[in-house]
């Protein structure tokens, strides 16, 4: 019956390159009215890029888009911006909802195309029409409510109402459930189902395979920018999707010989950080051990690391060598806990300052005489670090912002290696870093662990987790849901846990 539904949108051989890097290649997808299409894949598989192409936000470097006209005939189009997409009947509901918080619901639904009479806003008509669209998504709120006062789930529904009000026949949702509670998710899935029955095509990206299994009529699986599967309902199950998502053979680089002692260096007990789901996390890292935190974006890894580092306040206890760590990052850095943040430009580097200043910032505190900087020692230290971290170009006076991503990251890590931290926390240690620098960073982290430090790192790349970690903790929705030893872990097992699958044999959650 569903096959009777017409194709509303088709992409043929679409690809996209960014500065020579292929983000997406040779993608064929058909979106039909009255169908829910799910797009799944690991972080960085190209899902967002595909959504952006479908919704006209970015233009494909190759291939073409075809959109159905009123009679159902497909025509090749070039969508240049979201406005073109709206005109073609395609609406994107962003992951970060971008409703203007200071507008009321009716105002934001009709933003940019407000009904008017004699040049004045026709507020009565706006409200009446808005109410109709809100009813359509099952939302019974007053259209004059300010958007900023709505909970996230309702804002999302307002965005969907807005999409419908533009006569969109294709509604694209980017990780729509990532900020919703279980009940809100149920409600959203119901609405997606209703839209489907009305003949709308719904496309959504999700990290939660449960949802995909519940609602999707067809699934497109992406991996490394390519389509690895396109399956109709009945032809897919969880195991198959996981396998298609992960697919690639495990890199065979040598794993480190485990050298950790029995001594627990870092003990985290019932820590509740800033994560919105606010669940308590407990874990231990022994001296000489490298523990990897795996999980999907938004699983709460960053929040956990920031809590341990003292960058954000937290509940629960963090202990270093049996003594409790209290206070802010200042106090904890002095006790030997260091963090390499995820966003190095914002939280890690002083971009306009020289490499030397970036490297010595923590060292000068430990090596000052009555608070006076030991400038001669500083010069020596910087020279040694530049050599040790193989910073290129090897010019300490150069501004850090002129360095490549990999060298910038080495500078952040070098700042901490200079003070031999007892605990090193790394959030996405090699994001945006080239292969060579990645190997060097991994080597330095291993060398630090070999001296007896405890290392805890978070990475969205399973390959990196498997390569670097001795032990892997998998996080999902703010909690640790599984523990795996690196030599027995597989990408499949991690992905299973990270997407909300229950622990199976071989894992002890």
């Amino acid at each position, binding site marked *: 019956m569903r096959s009777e539904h017409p194709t509303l949108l088709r992409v043929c051989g679409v690809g996209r390159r960014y500065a020579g890097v292929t983000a997406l290649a040779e993608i064929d997808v058909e979106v039909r009215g009255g169908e829910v299409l799910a797009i799944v894949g690991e972080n960085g598989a190209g899902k967002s890029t595909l959504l952006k192409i479908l919704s006209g936000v970015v233009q494909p470097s190759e291939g073409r888009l075809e959109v159905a006209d009123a009679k159902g005939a497909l025509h090749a189009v070039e969508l240049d911006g979201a406005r073109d997409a709206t005109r073609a009947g395609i609406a994107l509901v962003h992951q970060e909802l971008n409703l203007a918080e200071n507008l009321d619901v009716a105002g934001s639904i009709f933003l940019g195309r407000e009904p008017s009479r004699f040049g004045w806003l026709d507020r009565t008509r706006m409200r009446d029409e808005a109410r109709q669209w809100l009813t359509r998504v099952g939302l019974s709120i007053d259209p004059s409510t300010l958007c900023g006062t709505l909970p996230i789930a309702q804002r999302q529904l307002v965005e969907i109402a807005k999409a419908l009000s533009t006569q969109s026949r294709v509604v694209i949702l980017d990780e729509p459930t990532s900020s919703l509670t279980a009940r809100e998710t149920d409600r959203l899935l119901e609405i997606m189902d209703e839209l489907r029955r009305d003949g709308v095509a719904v496309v959504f990206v999700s990290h939660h395979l449960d949802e995909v299994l519940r609602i999707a009529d067809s699934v497109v699986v992406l991996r490394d920018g390519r389509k690895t599967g396109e399956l109709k309902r009945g032809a897919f199950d969880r195991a198959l999707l996981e396998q298609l998502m992960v697919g690639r053979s495990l890199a065979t680089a040598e794993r480190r010989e485990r050298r950790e002692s029995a001594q627990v260096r870092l003990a985290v007990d019932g820590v509740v950080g800033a994560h919105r789901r606010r669940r308590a996390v407990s874990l231990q890292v022994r001296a000489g051990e490298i523990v990897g935190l795996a999980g999907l974006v938004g699983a709460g890894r960053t929040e956990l690391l920031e809590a341990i580092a003292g960058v954000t306040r937290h509940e629960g206890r963090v202990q270093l060598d049996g003594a409790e760590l209290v206070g802010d990052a200042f106090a904890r850095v002095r006790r030997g806990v260091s*963090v390499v943040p995820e966003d190095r430009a914002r939280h890690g580097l002083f971009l306009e300052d020289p490499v030397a200043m970036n490297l010595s910032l923590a060292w000068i505190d430990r090596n000052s005489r009555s608070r006076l900087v030991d400038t001669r020692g500083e010069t020596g230290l910087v020279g040694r670090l530049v050599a040790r971290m193989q910073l290129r170009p090897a010019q300490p006076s150069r501004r850090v912002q002129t360095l490549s991503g990999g060298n910038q990251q080495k500078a952040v890590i070098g700042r901490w290696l200079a003070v031999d931290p007892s605990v090193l926390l790394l959030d996405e240690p090699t994001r945006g870093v080239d292969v060579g620098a990645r190997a060097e960073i991994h080597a330095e982290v291993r060398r630090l662990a070999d001296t007896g430090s405890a290392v805890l790192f978070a990475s969205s790349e399973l390959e990196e987790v498997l390569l670097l970690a001795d032990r892997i903790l998998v996080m999902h929705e703010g909690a640790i849901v599984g523990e795996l030893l690196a030599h027995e872990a597989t990408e499949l097992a991690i992905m299973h846990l990270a997407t909300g699958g229950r622990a199976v044999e071989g894992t002890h959650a």
Partner: protein
Amino acid sequence: MKRALGIIGIFVVILIYSAFFAENFLSGINLMQLTTRTALYSILALGATLVIVTGGIDLSIGSVVCLSGIMTPWLLIEKEWTPWQAIPTVLAIAAFIGLCHGLLITRLKLQPFLVTLCGLLLYRGIARWMTGDQSQGFAGEFDDVRAIALAKFTIPGLTDYRLPATVIPMVVLATVIGLFLSRTVWGRWLLATGRNESAARYSGVPTARLITLSYVACSLLAGFGGMLFIFDIGSAQPSDFGNFYELYAIAAAVLGGCSLRGGEASIVGVLFGVATLRVLQNTITLAGFSSQIEFAVVGAVLLIGVAADELIRRFAARRLERVGAAASH
């Protein structure tokens, strides 16, 4: 030092112009007055610099100058306090004002502009209310205390120029603050905080404490400066004493190479920035320009200085980019 070269150049040009075209500019009495004024304004500008380095701003400097400058003779003459009571009290009040600014900015996360704008209105209001808006002065007494600002040292070989004592606090403070910023851990961290507060916090820098400290220092220096100003001039009106001094201080710091974005400072530059503004003001009076034009001239010089600095910086950045591109190929 490299950052200060531009302002040193401007200063020399204006100085030469003044020497030739401003009557009596080179007279001993004029130069002594100029030195005193430069020294006093420098104390305010050094305080402003510490705040600007963090990426903040202090608009209340002039009002703190007024409050402390008015309070000092008021306590001594009207309330008959001894200098040993009055001077520490006034300085403590100034420091407390700075502490309040710092805590409001770091704990309550209020914007520095707003906090110190409220301070600008508040402290002048208090000064005027306390004194019944009456002019305050030393009534010919306390010359021994006023000597802190009025004393002059004879330089061997010079007959009509004697070095004003106010140069001593200027030199001491400039040296201490310069060394603080470049050679102490706290100073380095203060610069880092101004450059990227978030990254500083992640790196274990106690950013809130350092920012608070900088506001305390700024207000304390404004209070100290206000005291020296009143010692120098003898009496003042609460309604206009110290008006616009914060803008002179900020202008001098910016002319001297401080970025209002924070993270950069040149103490030598700031001193020359102050001196430039003082010489300009002096010359406008002496060379027979209408004194009403002073603000316009200061504004124009500031604009030219800042625009030139930005253009030079862009040029340098572009050249660096080209070099970088060439190196990576």
